[in-house]
């Protein structure tokens, strides 16, 4: 069975949910309401149970929990084309929002809703036979996804110590900031991801924006950015949903990608990036596809490629790709990647293939990598944190909501050490 429960928290987390489930429905030959389309072929070879719970009339309900402290985004999902898709009892929406303040999401508002959220999660878990773990989508710079997301991570780990927890975490971008207190929120959240998650894919809006802009030939909007995230999530989970040999469950991901405990922060890349509607038009040959998949410009976090090295990488090619092509090109792909010197010559890189390409694509590639240059993301946040913290900027909002300066400093030190451990692994 090996079911996975997705938990979407906050505005960003739920906007991603909207894109993600649309994509998953189509890949599994389901309508927006969760009923099988006629003559669908995808549904037959897939392991539907991983992401869906089937009810009597043949309808599939996503194994998803939607949580937000502001009702706007979820209300739009509930009133849109997918209005009949989600189980009403798996949606928690509350007011008044966390006001960009991690401490409000974690303490003040979080405490009010966490029991209900955990209840909903427990109920969803009860509908599984052999749950393998959780996916959490959220942003770490805001208030709800970061603060309440952190609280959920802690409680999940407590309640399900043996299950794997993966997060898709949208990190503050180096250029565009969404709020003044992002560095605080991000550091406080990253520490919980470090302590309680098994793996985290960091996604940075700035990188997504750059990727989208280069490929779409127009100014991208947030939908485009979330669509890229959805494509990545769909491909990361494809090996769990469709027959294949590599990374068939979340534990295998962790084993393959995490060489040292705590160094479980990944960056991802998806190829080919095409404007919606044009995905199928160009059939890339395999060397081009793999080159684009591992192109540095194509990754979704602001990685320091110069100073860092690869610790581990997994790639999944989907659709019209032959295992033979992969085998022939394996050595040259590996050679193009700057692996840590202590990795054995053939180690570190795992490549799999899956028959079913994402909807509309002839073939696609996904890379999920653990690169020490991710330290740059943490270092930048720690530097910003320090300047603000040392000058007592904005800390009163956190103290007023029950998060002391000591608690903030502890998170900061944990993330500074994380950055250092990545640098040391280079």
């Amino acid at each position, binding site marked *: 069975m090996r079911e996975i429960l997705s938990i979407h928290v906050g505005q960003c987390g739920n906007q991603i949910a909207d894109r993600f489930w649309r994509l998953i429905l189509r890949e599994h030959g389901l309508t927006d309401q969760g009923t099988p389309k006629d003559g669908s072929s995808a549904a037959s070879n897939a392991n539907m149970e991983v992401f869906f719970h089937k009810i009597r009339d043949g309808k599939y309900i996503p194994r998803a929990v939607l949580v937000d402290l502001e009702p706007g985004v979820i209300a739009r999902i509930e009133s849109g084309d997918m209005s009949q898709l989600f189980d009403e009892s798996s949606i928690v929406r509350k007011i008044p929002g966390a*006001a*960009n303040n991690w401490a409000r999401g974690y303490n003040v508002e979080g405490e009010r809703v966490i029991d209900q959220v955990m209840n909903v999660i427990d109920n969803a878990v009860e509908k599984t036979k052999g749950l393998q773990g959780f996916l959490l989508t959220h942003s770490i710079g805001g208030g709800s996804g970061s603060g309440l997301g952190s609280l959920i991570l802690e409680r999940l780990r407590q309640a399900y110590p043996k299950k794997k927890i993966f997060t898709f975490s949208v990190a503050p971008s180096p250029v565009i900031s969404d*709020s003044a207190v992002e560095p605080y929120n991000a550091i406080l959240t990253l520490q919980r991801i470090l302590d309680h998650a098994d793996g985290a894919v960091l996604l940075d809006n700035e990188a997504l924006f750059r990727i989208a802009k280069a490929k779409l030939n127009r100014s991208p909007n947030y939908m485009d950015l979330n669509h890229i995230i959805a494509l990545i999530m769909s491909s990361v989970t494809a090996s769990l949903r469709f027959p294949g040999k590599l990374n068939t469950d979340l534990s295998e991901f962790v084993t393959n990608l995490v060489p040292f405990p705590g160094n479980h922060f990944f960056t991802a890349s998806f190829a080919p990036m095409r404007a919606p509607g044009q995905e199928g038009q160009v059939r890339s040959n395999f060397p081009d596809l793999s080159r684009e998949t591992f192109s540095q410009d194509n990754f979704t976090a602001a990685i320091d490629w110069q100073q860092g090295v690869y610790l581990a990488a997994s790639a999944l090619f989907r659709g019209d790709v032959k295992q033979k092509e992969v085998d022939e090109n394996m050595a040259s792909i590996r050679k193009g990647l700057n692996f840590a010197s202590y990795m054995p010559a053939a180690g570190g890189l795992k490549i799999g293939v899956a028959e079913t390409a994402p909807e509309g694509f002839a073939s696609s590639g996904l890379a999920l990598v653990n690169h020490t240059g991710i330290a740059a993301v943490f270092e930048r946040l720690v530097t910003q944190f320090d300047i603000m913290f040392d000058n007592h900027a904005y800390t009163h909002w956190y103290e007023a909501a029950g998060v002391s300066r000591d608690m903030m400093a502890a998170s900061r030190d944990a993330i500074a050490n994380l950055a250092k451990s990545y640098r040391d692994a280079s």
Partner: protein
Amino acid sequence: MKVNNTIVISIGQAGNQIAASFWKTICQEHGIDPMSGMATTQGTPPRGNWSSFFSQLGESNSGSYVPRAIMIDLEPSVIDNVKSTSGSLFNPANLISRTEGAGGNFAVGYSGAGREVLPEVMSRVTYEIDKCDNVGGIIIIHATGGGTGSGFGALLIESIKEKYPEAPVLSCAVLPSPQVSSVVTEPYNTVFALNSLRRTADACLIFDNEALFELAHRKWNIESPTVDDLNLLITEALAGITASMRFSGFLTVEISLRELLTNLVPQPSLHFLMCAFAPLTPPDRSKFEEMGIEDMIKSLFDNGSVFAACSPMEGRFLSTAVLYRGIMEDKPLADASLAAMREKLPLTYWIPTAFKIGYVEQSGISHRKSMVLLANNTEIARVLDRICHNFDKLWQRKAFANWYLNEGMNEEQIVSFRASAQELIQSYQVAEESGAKAKTQDEGTTSTRTHAVDDRRAPSVSLRDLVDRR
């Protein structure tokens, strides 16, 4: 759908005139008839998250929509005028007036006639708060020059924060200008009110009539602008600031008052904000002329278009929020222009990410595309200094002081209020000095935290001393 609700309380002549114009504008934006409170399209609910600023009896779409408004004045004429020009829009119990007025005297509004009307007002506040799903914020619109807006405004904010310490309170304070002045004791009233605004309000947004007069004159080409013209400018800004509380959706997420405060107030004592609006096209021309996105952003940060008589580009920006309206497709362009503008701004080094961006699809009434800037800028000290300077001139000779002493204030109290205003000015001066410090000091390694503040040449008051000061 449950949303955050905002209550708007207007006090005194200017406050109520602005509020009347504000409610008329947002009624139009939501598609609510400003005379009857009915939805203008029969049978369909108003546009956007109407329930953030309006309440409704029952669940049906047939009833009328009632502004979450309380209007108070110690004299009857403005409230009577609101009653006679707004049909059945407002709940009459929330329109509270008395006959005597405050005589342009803070002390009357704060302790005399103000105390007498307070119980009635607080019972209406409680009534409105009880109707809310959640109190997203309380906006107080008042002028600080007269007696009611300053005195009763201060008293009411203190009373609300005492009873509801959790509710975020934003004071929108109109500062007096000699050009449109009606009361000679304005500097006294303003300085006295500032003490309360500083200690009890969560933030105070300054609308400086001195600057607004110039704006109406230069940008709107009005020979001698009247108070009505200035209030129209304030209405545009207020409609823009509240837009993201009133219209939110899938991509345009709500920015609650609390969220604005989180971003705009880096330390409790530094909570005096200023704003700017673009485009400043004359209202009669806005139908025919449209300003480009880049020009709008340039205009927002132009010293000549901020709603306070000071030069923000000469001071330091502590934090900034820019709220767009009606420019969804142009958002990337706006973001890019804003990022370019950011490079030119005098920012504060210890607040590296001081930008909050919000956007709302729904256009305003007079402009298809518009934007508002909210800024916490150290130049506010210059505005406050101007008021204090005028105060000092009068106080030197104790001119008009007898009016306050007769109403129960004593000299010691007056001196302490004046000192409180000076402390506020000083806080911003400290913030300005500290913001200019070179960045190099903090570019050390990330694993050893630098204690920048300790190493510096210590000014007489340091940033750390500001933390607990209020």
